[in-house]
């Protein structure tokens, strides 16, 4: 079997992965770094992020305020030591990106400009017009090209983590171009595979966001943390699910129901003012805004369309000039995909699955419980996002914890000697056989990939959506269980070794089923309502019992088990979340 070996291996070349790669190269240029990514790095989903990245930079702002906004936004589920570290590192990381050439939007005097964002008390969101993620990713990618120690495996698809004696030793991956299945060995591995929005039918997430890394870690024995917390973004375009960034509201956009009424004022989010007020109304946190939409729908005050009910996002009063200057991409997307011009028309929007607060459980150094295995970015859960992430914290998280993961993985790798290669190779050969027998060369099979995927998505939306109950979740659990069984009988018509995307689709489906199971298991057990996890049968937050992270494990027999880990509280004792005051 073909093998190659490196010091540190990154699964994923998005924002987190590339930041880690650079950190490792700067730590020690002699360490060989492998970046394994199923798409060319600049295609990673970080590219779609629009609004901005948070970091305290203006004199009127403080680190403590950023901490508080993040912690209260996360409904006290964030680990406060991690948040403090994150907030402290954030401005430095954003500046570093500035030095690498990121085209941040500027003040007239040449300083970096910041904009307001949902749930933030001060203006602290750095932005590059409304293509922030695009510019960050391309800056990171282009900068990474200058480090000779970075070896990229572009369009390689990881199918398994190789673990020996409780320590990670590398991965098995398929080179899509040739169909070659190879073991790539490494002394430490970082999972940076991003989120898993595709578990749901209606999402802002790209086709590649299937929770690959979460499932890989789970199968390798690492726990996932806080998987019940799934963020719905309040403003997605119907049908496509394309995101209309929060920046549209931060610049002054209004949310209107079918009567043209700014309905958020009925949901304890403050009073309507003509200009945006921080932490109020349209600039409330995402969980509360998405929940308000459901209530409005129940009251019959939303607008019916062929693609579900919507409300209106109105930015017309901002005027063409401001729209072109601050949110040009919003206009471009509306014109191109919705056939409307926001300068003259209202934008139809509805809540859409957007972000996974949960992920592979790590400590503050990005380490998982498996030796040598680290995780960063949306795939990981440190946790700084708690029960509800604040917009613009994620892009910064990629940088802060990407760099941190890189550093610690590099240090770990430096201390390791060669492991037992024979045992690892035997494992890799087994995996190769599994890929061939159960997927590539499989001729029998009756179940269609797309049917199972659609049924899974439907079950998740119905059972584990914005509002959940024991019954809805139990039903979804049952469906997913059945789909797991049916997956074994999957039909694969494509047996080619050359760029076989049916093969990868099958793998991605299997990853998503695992993630779906984990989400439901955590949600069923959390008998309270907190942040984005709202149970209609347990409507209150319960700090007595549930001020703790869910940790979901996979048992040897394939079943899941959920344990709890207390939340770290340093300076901000749990309190009520107050907005609009």
């Amino acid at each position, binding site marked *: 079997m073909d093998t190659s070996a490196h010091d540190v291996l990154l699964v994923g070349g998005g924002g987190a992965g590339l930041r880690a790669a650079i950190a490792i190269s700067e730590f020690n240029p002699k360490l060989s770094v492998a970046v394994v990514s199923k798409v060319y790095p600049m295609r990673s989903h970080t590219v779609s992020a629009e609004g901005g990245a948070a970091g305290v930079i203006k004199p009127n702002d403080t680190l403590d305020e950023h901490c508080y906004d993040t912690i209260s936004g996360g409904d006290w589920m964030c680990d406060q030591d991690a948040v403090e570290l994150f907030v402290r590192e954030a401005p430095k990381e954003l500046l570093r990106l500035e030095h690498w050439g990121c085209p941040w939007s500027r003040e007239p005097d040449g300083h970096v400009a910041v904009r307001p964002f949902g749930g933030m008390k001060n203006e602290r969101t750095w932005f590059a017009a409304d293509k922030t993620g695009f510019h960050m990713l391309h800056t990171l990618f282009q900068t990474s090209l200058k480090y000779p120690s970075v070896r990229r495996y572009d369009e390689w698809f990881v199918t398994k983590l190789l673990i020996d004696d409780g320590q990670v030793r590398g991965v098995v991956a398929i080179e899509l171009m040739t169909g070659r299945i190879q073991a790539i060995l490494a002394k430490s591995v970082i999972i940076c595979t991003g989120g898993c929005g595709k578990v749901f039918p209606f999402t802002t997430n790209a086709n590649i966001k299937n929770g690959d890394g979460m499932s890989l870690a789970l199968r390798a024995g690492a726990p996932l943390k806080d998987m019940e917390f799934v963020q719905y973004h309040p403003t997605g375009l119907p049908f496509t699910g394309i995101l209309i960034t929060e920046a549209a509201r931060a610049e002054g956009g209004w949310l209107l129901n079918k009567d043209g009424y700014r309905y958020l004022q009925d949901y304890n989010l403050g009073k309507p003012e003509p200009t945006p007020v921080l932490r109020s109304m349209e600039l409330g946190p995402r969980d509360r805004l998405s929940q308000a939409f459901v209530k409005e729908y129940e009251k019959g005050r939303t607008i019916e369309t062929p693609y579900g009910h919507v409300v209106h996002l109105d930015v017309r009063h901002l005027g063409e000039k401001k729209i072109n200057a601050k949110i040009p991409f919003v206009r471009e997307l509306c014109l191109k995909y919705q056939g409307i011009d926001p300068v003259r028309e209202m934008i139809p929007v509805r809540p859409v699955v957007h972000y996974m607060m949960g992920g592979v459980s790590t400590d503050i150094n990005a380490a998982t419980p498996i030796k040598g295995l680290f995780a960063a970015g949306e795939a990981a859960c440190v946790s700084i996002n708690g029960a509800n992430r604040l917009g613009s914290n994620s892009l910064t998280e990629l940088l802060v914890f990407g760099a941190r993961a890189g550093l610690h993985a590099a240090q770990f790798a430096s201390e390791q000697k060669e492991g037992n290669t024979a045992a690892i190779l035997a494992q890799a050969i087994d995996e190769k056989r599994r890929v061939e027998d159960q997927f590539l060369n499989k001729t029998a099979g009756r179940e269609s990939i797309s049917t199972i995927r659609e049924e899974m998505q439907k079950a998740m939306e119905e059972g584990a959506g914005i509002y959940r109950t024991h019954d809805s979740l139990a039903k979804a659990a049952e469906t997913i269980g059945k789909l797991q069984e049916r997956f074994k009988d999957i039909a694969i018509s494509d047996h080619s*070794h050359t760029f076989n995307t049916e093969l990868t689709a099958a793998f991605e489906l299997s990853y998503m089923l695992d993630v779906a199971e984990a989400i439901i298991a955590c949600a069923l057990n959390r008998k309270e309502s907190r942040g984005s996890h709202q149970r209609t049968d347990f409507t209150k937050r319960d700090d007595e019992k549930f001020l703790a992270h869910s940790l979901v494990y996979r048992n040897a027999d394939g079943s899941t088990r959920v344990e709890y880990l207390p939340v770290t509280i340093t300076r901000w004792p749990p309190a009520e979340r107050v907005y609009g005051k």
Partner: protein
Amino acid sequence: MKQSHAYTLYHPKWYRRRVSTWWWTQQWRSFKFILRELSSLAVIYFVALLLWLLWSLGQGEASYRNFLAWMESPLMIAFNVIAFLFVLYHSITWFNLAPKAMPVRVGGKRLPDWMIAAPNYAAWVVISVVIAWFILGGN
């Protein structure tokens, strides 16, 4: 282009399409582009013609008359008209492209393309008029 070798496992077998020599005839846009490229020959031709004119002037009157006679032949007139049309085409496309090559910014805003092309055209017209005045009415 036929590819004869067979596929071997784990080795990609890419298909490359050779570009036809006549690719530019397949689309009006590319045809116009090739015309534009060719029009530079006409420019060269006129430069050569001018040099020849100067040279024959230098050789004395007989030679100059000879040149004029040659120029009056219907064949040459037809040829020159065609060459002139090519040069016109060359100039117009050239001026239209100028704004792309030399964007001008005023007060941080890029000037619209026509504002850069227009002075070029204006200069062209003015110079042409001046020359015409010299040749036709100036004496």
